[in-house]
């Protein structure tokens, strides 16, 4: 690809749009703009512009389009697949300063926000108004723009679905600089192609999201978790389909093993309330009354006991929830701290195949001779599996890692699963997407990309 290199004139243009203090070049570019949370390699954009308005993005895109300069949009950079890394240099458009909550519409139950608003600020704001934005990805310091770009999921997906289910409308800037709105505050919409939904999850390759209208729900008044110890992981995971079948819907169903609990205890320096068992299911429930909650969790607790659970432990206060969920929230960091380097596989499989997939990983670990640790959303089939380098030499690491990843993605495909549940494809998972989906599918993606971005300037090298 023959992109234009940034020169003094380009920088002068960016400064004319954004002002000097929001344009960074060379050594001024903060190290964090060269990577995301998982990618170790540092790849710097040639220039970073921290934009404030849609209009600024529009002007920058128009200029980039005319001058053939690649543009990488970016939020907080908390992704795990390299989606927000400028692998072809060019301009990075950072939306972190577009962090205003624009409107709470209590009559339509919507919240209009700029893309740089953090998920944690949205959660705090709506809660204060007795409202609820259900998507709950683990990384609360991500921006909503980033969440929209990857169609972020999170733990509550079992009951509430994912980011795409809560985006009513978006305003975007297209690669040629045009500003366009898709969707709106309406509940229904069948007006032509669902462009909004194709932009969501497109990882900034089709358009830059500059505004979003989120759908809100009334805030459930109460919530509670069950920590269910099992003799072994297979038994724990095999219970999940039975819970789903019973039609009592927990908001989240996670699985965890003792080993990772111990790692997070070590990492946080905090004791977990129970570690007597080898494996656990962690379920949460929400509702509006104590009675409603009690009925729901008791039914599930009975199912677990019948399926061989040792007990069902009830977490019903803030302290108890903190003791459990702070550990759950630290799993990734704890695994990171326990090894030298790691890579992640974020596959999703049908819920009734989770147990088989976990068993497969166990065997794979033995077969290849590399450590594989995992935890994940048993309730929605999305697993986070980490391959750990530990003390391996570079060549052996690359070799074993590739074998493990290939095997896991192939297995996921065999089970009717997909490459990414919630982290996206970015640049890191592209080969696996192609291997899983096949050439024709990739061709169709590329044609869609071309329709939006004929010059391939917006976040090039990602997804397809």
């Amino acid at each position, binding site marked *: 690809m023959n992109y234009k290199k940034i020169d003094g004139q380009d920088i002068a243009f960016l400064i004319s749009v954004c002002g000097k203090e929001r344009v960074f070049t060379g050594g001024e570019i903060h190290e964090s703009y060269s990577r995301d949370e998982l990618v170790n390699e540092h790849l710097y954009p040639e220039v970073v512009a921290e934009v404030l308005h849609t209009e600024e993005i529009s002007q920058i895109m128009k200029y980039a389009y005319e001058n053939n300069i690649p543009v990488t949009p970016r939020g907080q950079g908390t992704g795990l697949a390299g989606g927000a890394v400028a692998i072809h240099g060019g301009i990075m458009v950072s939306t972190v300063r577009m962090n205003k909550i624009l409107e709470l519409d209590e009559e339509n139950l919507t919240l209009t926000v700029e893309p740089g608003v953090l998920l944690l600020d949205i959660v705090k704001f709506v809660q204060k108004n007795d409202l609820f934005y259900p998507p709950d990805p683990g990384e609360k310091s991500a921006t909503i723009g980033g969440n929209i770009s990857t169609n972020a999921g999170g733990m509550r997906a079992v009951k509430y679905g994912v980011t795409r289910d809560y985006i009513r409308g978006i305003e975007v800037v297209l690669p040629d600089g045009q500003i366009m709105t898709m969707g709106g505050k309406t509940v229904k919409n069948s007006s032509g192609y669902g462009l909004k939904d194709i932009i969501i999850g497109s990882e900034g390759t089709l358009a830059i999201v500059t505004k979003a209208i989120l759908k809100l729900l009334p805030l459930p008044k*109460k919530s509670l978790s*069950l*920590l269910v110890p099992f003799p072994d992981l297979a038994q724990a995971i095999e219970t999940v389909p039975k819970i789903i079948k019973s039609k009592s819907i927990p908001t989240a169903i996670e699985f965890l093993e003792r080993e990772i609990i111990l790692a997070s205890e070590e990492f946080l320096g*905090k*004791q*977990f*309330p*129970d570690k007597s068992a080898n494996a656990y299911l962690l379920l949460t429930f929400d509702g509006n009354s104590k009675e409603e909650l009690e009925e729901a969790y*008791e039914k599930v*607790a009975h199912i677990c*006991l019948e399926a061989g659970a040792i*007990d*069902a*432990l*009830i*977490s*019903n*206060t*803030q*302290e*108890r929830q903190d*003791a459990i969920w702070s550990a759950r929230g630290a799993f990734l960091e704890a695994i990171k701290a326990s090894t030298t380097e790691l890579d992640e596989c974020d596959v999703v499989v049908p819920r009734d195949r989770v147990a088989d997939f976990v068993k497969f990983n166990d065997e794979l670990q033995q077969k290849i001779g590399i450590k594989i640790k995992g935890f994940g959303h048993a309730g929605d089939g999305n697993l986070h599996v980490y391959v750990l380098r530990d003390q391996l030499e570079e060549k052996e690491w690359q070799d074993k890692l590739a074998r493990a990843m290939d095997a896991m993605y192939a297995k996921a495909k065999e089970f009717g699963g997909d490459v990414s549940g919630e982290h996206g494809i970015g640049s890191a998972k592209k080969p696996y997407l192609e291997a899983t989906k096949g050439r024709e599918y990739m061709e169709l993606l590329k044609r869609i990309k071309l329709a939006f971005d004929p010059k391939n300037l917006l976040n090039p090298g990602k997804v397809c």
Partner: protein
Amino acid sequence: MNIIVCIKQVPGTSEVEVDQETGVLKREGIDSKMNPYDLYAIETAIKMKEEKGAKISVVSMGPPQAAEIIREAYMMGADEGALISDRVFGGADVLATSYTISQGVQKFGLYDLIICGKQTTDGDTAQVGPELAEFLGIPHITNVKKIVEVKEHSIIVDMDMPHAVQTVEVNYPCLITVEKDINQPRLPSFKRKLATKNQAIPMYSFKDFTDQNENNYGINGSPTRVIRIFSPEANNDREMWKDTPDVLVDRLTNKLKELKYV
């Protein structure tokens, strides 16, 4: 051995507000829960029971709905419990509360050890334990951070002091208050919930007590009066200092002095 654990029901959140007009706490819609510090006390008792064998009784003073936390203590592993509840006890301060509990504790018969949480999250006074021990005429040890040994006639514990740890042996009967982090309290068990579903929670009221003088209870037995409650002024200072390093170090040193760190 017989262990009594004192527990209290407190508001489910510490983010309470004061009604500016009436000066009363706004409690509407706030759930109640067991005082978090008491969970450590219960866990301490259960660990002793697991190690040496013991009968654990829990006692709480509060409105009838406080029976919930007794039931929760059953779900954690307590063997029996009782609730001290009567309108006569309303408006009690620390002294009247401690006195009332001391009357209630006597209903349990002989005991070896009383365990209390270090403090509550609503009152924060950390006084009920020592005052209760005084009314019962037994020795007490506060701020226990470790149970060293449980013996037949005494217990050895580590008491947390500002600059030292004092290891003491104290004869039964006695009272200890335990620090948070002495252990990680277990979660209530669903299996125990099923098993203790029909276990009774006796209720003791004024008429059950030996001391029948109403002036020793509730607001009448309380020497302190709360004149007013109000919201604290938050530290909203936002100062930016821009100067030469010398001046900045000067100002910083003075600020640290003012904050009493130098």
